């Protein structure tokens, strides 16, 4: 790895950390508009973080070390995930350390930790949230992996860089399998980021909450870190989606000239993606918790179908 690519890596690290709340705010704002509300503004997530960081932290009496350290681990995982997805340029020196499977693994790690932390206090809501989160997760993770596998069988590799390079810079081919994959990916993304129709981030009704139920006991800086982590998660998913389905415009190795364009394109794509997400949320209604497995199962099957279609239609003769 050489000096500029290292710089690039650091730059992306900083960038994702900073713009994550922005994406969240933008998505919420779009949703507000579509629901004919004024909305709190794009910058609201930052304000929330600042507010939370200034509050006094309150811990339950029986909170254990696991509960206190989880937010840091969570944020670190999400940061790593978001930072290693090539969205600006494809020579991220650290990216080889984590391929798509490892990426899914990192998401799983974060999920397990937050669920454990949720169970730590031993409140009714905490365990409820943890159970539901794991329920969603154990169906979402395979679905995500199947989506990624479709891409990696196309590109014959599980490393994100190679995938992006194959999809973006090799001769342009239409992959029908990617259609299935895309649909499945969106469903997984909705579920994993606690969006409607699977979860509703802006409610604290016990019937509906999943993600919120888990973090009920967190306050102040810990809560801030958790929130930031989920924002990063949203960003990471969006960037993965970009890298898989609309990779065009990502700078190739050594081609530094393309970088500004790449940045511009990234913001455009994110904006569109956020808007699309908000659109879907605005259209659909929250579903009962036991519809969720069916929803996720559909996503899983779609992804597998995508993979099969690849073997049927696009298998290298």
């Amino acid at each position, binding site marked *: 790895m050489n000096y500029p690519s290292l710089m690039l890596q650091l730059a992306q690290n900083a960038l994702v950390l900073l713009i994550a709340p922005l994406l969240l705010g933008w998505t919420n704002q779009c949703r507000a508009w579509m629901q004919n509300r004024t909305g709190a503004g794009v910058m609201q997530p930052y304000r929330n973080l600042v507010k939370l960081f200034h509050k006094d932290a309150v811990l*339950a009496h*029986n909170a254990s070390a696991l509960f206190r350290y989880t937010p840091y681990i969570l944020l670190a995982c999400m940061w790593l995930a978001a930072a290693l997805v090539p969205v600006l340029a494809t020579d991220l020196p650290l990216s080889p350390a984590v391929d798509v499977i*490892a990426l899914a693994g990192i998401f799983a790690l974060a999920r397990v930790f937050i669920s454990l932390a949720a169970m730590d206090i031993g409140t009714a809501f905490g365990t409820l949230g943890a159970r539901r989160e794991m329920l969603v997760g154990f169906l979402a993770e395979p679905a995500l992996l199947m989506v990624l596998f479709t891409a990696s069988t196309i590109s014959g590799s599980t490393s994100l860089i190679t995938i992006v390079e194959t999809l973006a810079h090799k001769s342009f081919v239409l992959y029908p399998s990617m259609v299935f994959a895309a649909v499945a990916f969106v469903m997984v993304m909705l579920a994993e980021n606690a969006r409607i129709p699977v979860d509703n981030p802006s409610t604290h009704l016990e019937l509906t909450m999943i993600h919120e139920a888990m973090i009920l006991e967190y306050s102040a800086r810990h809560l801030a870190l958790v929130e930031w982590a989920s924002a990063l998660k949203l960003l990471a998913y969006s960037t993965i989606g970009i890298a898989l389905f609309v990779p065009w415009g990502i700078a190739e190795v050594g081609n530094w000239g393309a970088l500004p364009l790449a940045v511009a394109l990234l913001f455009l794509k994110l904006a569109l993606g956020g808007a699309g997400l908000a659109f879907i949320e605005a259209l659909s209604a929250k579903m009962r918790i036991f519809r969720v497995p069916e929803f996720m199962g559909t996503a899983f099957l779609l992804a597998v179908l995508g993979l099969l279609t690849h073997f049927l239609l696009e298998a290298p003769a």
Partner: protein
Amino acid sequence: MFASFGVLPMDVILGVVVFWLVLGMAGLVLQNSRLIARIIFPLGALGSLALAGAALAGLDETSTAILPLGLPDLPFHLRMDALSAFFLLLLGSASIGISVFSAGYFRDMPKASLGPLCLEYHLFLASMALVFLADDAYLFMVAWESMALSSYFLVTTDHDQPEVRRAGFLYLLIAHVGAISILMCFGVMQGGHGDYTFGAMRHAHLTTSWASAVFFLALFGFGAKAGILPLHAWLPEAHPAAPSPVSAMMSGIMLKTAIYGILRITFDLLGMQLWWWGVAALALGLLTALFGVIFAAVQVDMKRLLAYSSIENIGFILTGVGLTIIFHDSHKDALAALALTASLYHALNHAFMKGLLFLGTGSILHATGERHLGKFGGLIRQMPKLALLMLVGALALAGLPPLNGFVSEWLLLQAFLLSPGLPQPYINMLVPIAAAALVLAAALAGYVMVKFYGVIFLGQPRDSSLAKVHDAGLWERAGMLCMVIGCIALGVFPTFVILHLDHVTEMLVHHSLSVSAAKTGWLLLTPIQAERASYGPLVLLLIIAGGGLLIALAVKKLVHGRLRRGPAWDCGFPAQTARMQDTAEGFGQPIRQIFEWYMGVVRQVPTPFDKHPHFHSETHDLLWNIFYAPVKRLNDAIGKQLGKLQHGRIHIYLLYSFLTLLALLAFVR
């Protein structure tokens, strides 16, 4: 390393075997149980250490020996090649921790039962070592059955509980049926020369039909030991029944002897493999994995849960073996090597992860005397050290990076992903589905582990007696620490491990990953090529740790550190009792709801008018009714019919003899 002293690894290993036997005998004669615990078991651990070292040294060489024992024309043949060396390494390295743990675990056991237990324990170790060393059918069977026998006696240590006796019975019965099938398998393989040395079997050329018979007999026979569907019935019974170190040894090491047997017969003794064997093994493995993990999710007994999870992991390993067979038959040796590496690696990992967790349950049992998950909760506060050690095991078993469980799953998935281009189109279709099933099982493992760890260690204590439990003792913690170190090391330095596994793959499928693994340095694991797939667990660990620290420091610097303690908020609900948390059943309930069709669920639901409403539900194994019950019924029916023949009337007995005589005379005539 041994050669410099003029000692062959084989000699060291034989020495260790003898040493173990001597230790066992010493345990039988020693009078003081504290002495046995404090001296014999640590010595046994030293033996394991020596064994592991010798096996490591012996990985790259093949040595044979012949003992003047056994049948007159079939003395005991011993052979240590890469395969046996690898499994001996597994045995040695995993049993160190277990023996150290036992030193603490068995300390306050009455002499009357500890003496025999010590003998059986070391006999168990020795016979497993001999299973790996055996190079003729007779010694193999002797070692194999001695292993079953000693473990049976270990399982029935607290035999005054009926369910323990039942477990032991089921265990030894299934093991024996399996052994008979293995015996038949050897009977076929010697191909009519009456020579039962493995050397002869390697050169016997069987027709494809006989070879297939051998493979499936072996799959059945060893499957009975490994707990492959539908021969898994003994596993969830025997593991909870046994003392925890024994469960650790059985689940961590003994199940792998079955894998060893399958590999030995399929790749070493049989000169051939057919792709459809692989398909069969693959399908069986996946079914086993899914079955195991689904049932693990609904268990309420912590050791049963782990036992089912062992079934799942065996399923993983078998899947890898099946994939290896498919690839090897279609001459994709690089992929075969990859799949084989994955399954061997997983075998090694599972020995450490599952060993660790079973040992942990031992400590919990010691502290609380309870196995039912519904009685635990919040143990992390009373047993923080244990909780930390167990957290590593749980995360590893959940298959999370950067721990070891993830590495082998990663390798296996790589093998799946790189499979396209197999000659048989149907397998090409099958592979993605198989991969999907595998991933599903892996993801469910995470669910199971969260349930396991969360219900035991987190939350509020569900039982008042938990308030005054003590943390695990020093010896126990030391034993578990060995396992933890293993989990982390295996997870973070995969390249080194694979470099050693290469000897085995080289021997079995005549190809190894070393070339590709070594190229990009030990930091990155690249089984095929750097651009196809790469994984750097150490980097991952450093980034996560570094990122976490960075954030922590930043928060410390930029933000005030004010912290208050208060009651849990919980949406402002006033009363918080421990009974408001999920029970073990509750946590497994979604899984039970989703997969209800595949398990026999017996529910007892209260009606609205019940004075004391009581909900109870338990999950049964449908396969029992499908496979086992009919056999028993048939057996009883035949016995009943035959019993009628013998009703005590001497005239009828005379008539039998008379008719027999007449029949024979007529026959001669």
